[in-house]
């Protein structure tokens, strides 16, 4: 101890001094650290959740994000239409309800649940009665015959919650076009409530197939998009394939085998008159119209290769668009007429390609596995539908016009040949069922992949093509 005490004064200036300085420095650092630490701890925890902004109740509105809605159809009420012929009026209302229901976007409510009976088209409905049965919209209408024999329908579309009238219109059609009245009303209601153009006042041209599987009788047929009013356009003595509608006139182009040679014909639907498009020294198949109705594009085969050829309908001048020596076929114009999508196997497998309408700028579009064929450009311009064969199954799919976003809509045995409704929202295709007694049937599907339905045909049917809107 004495040693220590004796030693201590010796070290006052050196070791303890330095140690003291070090100790003081350390204490200062420690103090700062604890101060910072406690300061952090004392700060209020950051609030999780809503983005910073003016706090509600203190000068800014409450902000609520809703990111989940429902895909359920809109409940709509379509009571019987008024009219002197109640049967006729009721049928028109039934067509409206059936069209809306078939689109998959609406749910017409059961008439037995209706409380108010519509008696006057110009009167304000008792909206409370419709609200109670959960209708969001109400269609009231009248249908009847004009003195000159033509048929008239008018309707009003009401918004049940606000009591506003959303649409009202009146249509007149020819004496035998009764069903069109319902389709026209349905188109207006559909368009007003969904923002999409309607597609109910349209027709489908297709190949009606009858007879045993190995010896089918194929005839050209046409019907309304809901399967009614089927009429045959050819007798079946010759083989007909791939009918296509003209966008501007009541005309269809199709292929017919005359003897051994397939040829492209134009047929006027109103007169029934046929016209040979051309006599080409080779196979011709899959003709399509340009959006202005002035040109036809098709594929011509010679010496093992197939090229895409465009022809002006008035001048009958042809122009060759591809010359790769591969098989280029299935061409389809874009709705603005500036581009053409087609299938080609120039890269070794069947893929989709796109080029300008003059044949320049040919580039590949599809990138997946499998074999792509029958491309069709949506009338809305934003999607291309196609058939894809992968493994043993056939898919109908859509992709964006740059080739991205490929999506399968339906898969099955031998799905093929998609065609777009004029609003670019619904597709029709045909699907073959297996077995000896099986055959192709027409199906429709929404571009979201929902609501696949079979379209009724009198017998088997294939190769559908959708007409533009008739009005």
């Amino acid at each position, binding site marked *: 101890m004495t040693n220590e005490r004796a030693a201590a004064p010796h070290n006052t200036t050196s070791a303890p001094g330095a140690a003291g300085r070090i100790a003081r420095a350390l204490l200062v650092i420690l103090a700062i650290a604890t101060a910072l630490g406690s300061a952090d701890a004392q700060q209020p925890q950051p*609030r*999780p*959740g*809503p983005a910073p902004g003016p*706090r*509600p*109740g*203190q000068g800014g*509105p*409450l*902000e*609520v*994000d*809703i*990111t*989940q*809605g*429902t*895909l*359920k*159809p*809109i409940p709509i009420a379509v009571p019987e239409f008024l009219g002197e012929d109640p049967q006729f009026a009721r049928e028109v209302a039934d067509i409206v309800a059936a069209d809306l229901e078939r689109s998959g*976007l609406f749910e017409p409510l059961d008439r037995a649940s209706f409380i108010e009976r519509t008696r006057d088209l110009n009167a304000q409905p008792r909206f409370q009665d419709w609200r109670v049965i959960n209708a*969001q919209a109400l269609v009231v209408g009248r249908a009847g015959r004009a003195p000159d024999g033509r048929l008239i329908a008018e309707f009003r579309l009401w*918004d049940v*919650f*606000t009591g506003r009238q*959303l649409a009202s219109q009146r249509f007149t059609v020819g004496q035998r076009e009764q069903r069109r009245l319902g389709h026209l009303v349905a188109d207006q209601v559909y*368009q*007003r*409530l*969904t*923002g*999409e153009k309607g597609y109910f006042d349209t027709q489908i041209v297709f190949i009606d197939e009858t007879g045993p599987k190995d010896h089918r009788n194929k005839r050209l047929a046409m019907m309304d998009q809901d399967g009614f009013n089927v009429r045959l356009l050819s007798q079946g003595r010759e083989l007909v394939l791939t009918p296509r509608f003209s966008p501007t006139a009541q005309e269809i182009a199709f292929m017919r085998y005359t003897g051994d040679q397939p040829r492209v014909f134009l047929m006027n639907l109103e007169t029934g008159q046929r016209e040979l498009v051309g006599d080409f020294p080779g196979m011709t198949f899959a003709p399509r119209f340009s959006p202005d109705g002035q040109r036809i594009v098709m594929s011509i085969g010679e010496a093992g290769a197939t090229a895409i050829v465009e022809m002006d309908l008035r001048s009958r001048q042809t122009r060759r668009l591809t010359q790769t020596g591969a098989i280029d076929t299935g061409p389809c114009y874009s709705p603005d007429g500036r581009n053409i999508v087609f299938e080609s196997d120039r890269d070794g497998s069947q893929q989709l390609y796109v080029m300008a309408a003059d044949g320049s700028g040919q580039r590949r579009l599809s990138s997946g596995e499998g074999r792509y064929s029958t491309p069709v450009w949506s009338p*809305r311009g*934003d999607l291309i539908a196609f058939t894809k064969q992968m493994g043993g199954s056939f898919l109908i799919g859509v992709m964006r016009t740059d080739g991205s976003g490929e999506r399968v809509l339906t898969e099955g045995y031998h799905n093929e040949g998609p065609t777009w409704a004029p609003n670019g*929202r619904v597709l029709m295709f045909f699907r073959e069922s297996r077995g000896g007694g099986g055959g192709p049937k027409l199906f429709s599907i*929404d*571009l*979201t992949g*929902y609501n696949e339905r079979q379209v009724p045909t009198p017998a088997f049917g294939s190769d559908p093509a959708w007409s533009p809107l008739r009005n």
Partner: protein
Amino acid sequence: MRGGLATSVVLHAAILGWALITIPSQRELRVAEPEPIAVDIVSASELTKLRQGVRTAKQLEAEAKATKAEPAKKEAPKPTPAAAAPPPPPPPEPDPPAPKEEPKQVAAVPPPPPAAAPPVPSPEDQKKFEEMLKEQQRQAEEQKKAEEQRQAELKKKQEEAKKRAAELKKKRKEAEAKKKQFDAEKIAALLNKTPDKGSPAAPSAPHEPTKAKGPVLGAPEGRDRQLSASELAVLKQIIRSCVGPKWNVFGGGEEAQNTIVKIRVLFHPDGRLAATPQIVNPQNSPFFLAAAESALRAVQACEPYPLPPDKYNVWKDTVLTLNPRDMF
């Protein structure tokens, strides 16, 4: 050298022999067993009950004094872990999320005298408090039923949420005032396992109406302007849970996944719409119009909205942003 070897062997043997004898005979080392710590899991509903107990604290006090004279009767075999409970838990957080029920005299409940309860409860006190809590609940229910009959106009949700807000405010006041009594009650509440009767659970508040129809409390401005994050979330969820399922989204429209509709809604204090909702970001496309109208229909179909009237200042002006991007 041989002597050295012999000595070495003998010494080695001696050590080994000593080791063999002494080591096994040593005492075993024993580790002291740790004191068992009693742990109680407190659920939110027990906190709820706790606050119910606090509500009529005055009466609790009176009854405690009255029944102090009969400790023998109240003595009951209670689970000892509670008796050996650790020091009383910390005071409650200022903004508890669970809703509370309140009688009319919410504003009139004074802070009870602090000296009433002992810091560490004895078994008989626990039993007393437990019974008192039960009694309180019964009384509370009777009161509630009486008030239900008296009041019939106002919406159920409003009262419940109003009570919740006033209860919160009262909680803050009382938390400081009566810490000690709080502890005792908490332990009593923990012992009380009778289920809550008639108090609606907090998470289901937006979906079920309360059974209570008490009187309306508070002015339209509301006293309470501070909202915690969870209360804000509850408000938004009330709106979202009604409008969302009614909002028909059209999946196939052009650019449907990018169609965002913003609607500004003004409310009356009772949850009805004060005016036709306005589209904040109108656009010209028919798809947008269809989406906007569908959203408007959903907003209108949901009125009256079950939003808490005492927070009216917060939600009277609301902007809904309907964005279907998550659906694609």
